[in-house]
């Protein structure tokens, strides 16, 4: 399939369920809100090594936050509900509670919740106090700066992880330019994050390894340097660099939308080919076919 300047491979991205939470961080100014959000979502590129995947979803205007201050939405994903609860407590406790002027709220609504502020309150060593407003309990934890306000329970929901597109280019610069354009376009989509640095991974992986105990290893089929060594290489002649964007979202529709806008941007910004990663269809229940996304882009 052709779309703009690129060949789009007729394949699909294979996504799977993960538990998700949305964290709303507010602060005295957008600078501190952003600092806290970057700390919260740091070292959270892949569950393989970080136990969770996280990223900044979008910057919030004052009118969109619970306390009327500048804010940031972050999404955090983990394989199971209990794991998500642990990661939330660890990360909010270490990166938001500690950050000047911040407060932290749940950004999702729903019956399914996990305890976050109710655990972090113990930092108050008995001097913490709670407030209940509109059916929600908040904890006021005294800190040296003043007070840290955190919502007791955070709603969690089953999200979708592992959406992806892979951009191939004639050289590293053009492939990266395509990936950057795709990541930038995807940032306009609500309910999704791209957990890798700048949204882009240069080291896509396959499941397993020749070394025992290693869950994942380099995606040799898409390594240009191995094109002459790997018998079933998927690197076409003339391609010298490949980047991947992984997308986690609250719904498969949001992930698909992000893939579609990213695909469209990549094909206009230097990619020679665009493909997607899957596991043969056996791992995840969500199969997002690139041909469907191309169809949408062509209709637009």
């Amino acid at each position, binding site marked *: 399939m052709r779309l703009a300047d690129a060949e789009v491979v007729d394949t699909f991205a294979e996504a799977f369920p993960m538990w998700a939470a949305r964290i709303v961080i507010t602060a005295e100014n957008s600078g501190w809100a952003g600092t806290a959000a970057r700390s919260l979502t740091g070292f959270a590129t892949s569950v393989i090594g970080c136990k969770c995947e996280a990223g900044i979803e979008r910057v919030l205007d004052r009118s969109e936050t619970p*306390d*009327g201050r500048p804010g940031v939405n972050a999404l955090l994903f983990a394989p199971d509900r209990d794991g998500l609860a642990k990661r939330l407590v660890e990360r909010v406790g270490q990166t938001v509670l500690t950050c000047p002027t911040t407060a932290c709220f749940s950004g999702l609504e729903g019956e399914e919740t996990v305890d976050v502020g109710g655990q972090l309150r113990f930092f108050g060593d008995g001097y913490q106090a709670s*407030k*209940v*407003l*509109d059916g929600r309990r908040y904890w*006021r934890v005294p800190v040296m700066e*003043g007070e840290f306000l955190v919502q007791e329970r955070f709603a969690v929901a089953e999200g979708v992880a592992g959406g992806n597109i892979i951009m191939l280019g004639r050289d590293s610069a053009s492939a990266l330019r395509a990936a950057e354009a795709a990541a930038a376009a995807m940032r306009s989509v609500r309910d999704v994050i791209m957990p890798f640095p700048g949204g882009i991974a240069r080291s896509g992986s396959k499941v397993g390894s020749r070394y025992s105990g290693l869950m994942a290893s380099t995606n040799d089929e898409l390594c240009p340097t191995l094109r002459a060594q790997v018998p079933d290489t998927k690197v076409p002649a003339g391609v010298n660099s490949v980047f991947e964007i992984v997308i986690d979202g609250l719904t498969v529709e949001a992930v698909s939308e992000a893939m579609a806008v990213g695909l469209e941007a990549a094909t206009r910004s230097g990619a020679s080919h665009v493909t997607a990663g899957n596991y043969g269809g056996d791992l995840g229940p969500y199969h997002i076919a690139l041909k469907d996304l191309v169809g949408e882009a062509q209709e637009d």
Partner: protein
Amino acid sequence: MLTLTLREQPTVPLETEGLSPDRLATCQRSEVEALTVWDGNRRAQVGDFFALSGETGEELRVEGDLRRVKFLGAGMTAGRLTIAGDAGMHTGAGMRGGELVVEGAVGDFAGVGMRGGRLVVEGSAGHHLGGARQGERAGMRGGEIFVHGDAGDQVGAGLRRGLIAVAGRMGDVAGLRMLAGTIVALGGLGARPGAGMRRGSIVAMSPVTLLPTFALANTYRPPFLRLYLRHLRALGLPVTDEQIEGSYARWSGDGVDLRRGEILVLESERALA
């Protein structure tokens, strides 16, 4: 919506416990007319005092000169009750849910022992607003009370949980022996607020004379207060930007008890600086 219109003001207080939208929602009109009310110490029926119009449902409206009608909306758990005009004592006492809107003033003991729901008084309230029932230690245990006018003495006495906000002036000893919860005085506080309080918050938007058993902790911008004040403003109470953005002196007390409570006093000059 069912409307009950009081035919004439009773000569002695009329107790109407149970006249609430949730109780009446599934009743036929004849059943509503047969419900018991107490005319002083005499058992009577709703139909003896009120004319009924409309259909029963989740909304109930009560009209007439209701200043001697007590316990309107007491114990209601859901629905919406509108009182067109002033209401008597114990209005909304023991509410557990729903919304009760009084388009005039309410007498003493409004919202005592409340556990949930929302009581809105567009006029003023008497004494013991959101306080404890006679003989009980704990007062209001949940829900919200908003008064657009003034309120009398002992607002939120024994308050355990919930929010009381008064746009006008509060009388003396607001938050007497309160256990937790939040009282917001947008228009001034009388003498001795928070006397004997264990926990909880009283917020004052104008200078107040505190008991000597309260100690100044610091001046800061309490993050939780922004949520509360924005909530109040969204519900139509007169909250200013200065109050939302301002700094508050935190006084801890009462020293005769736990000293885990707080009175937050807006520092206007600092807020404007």
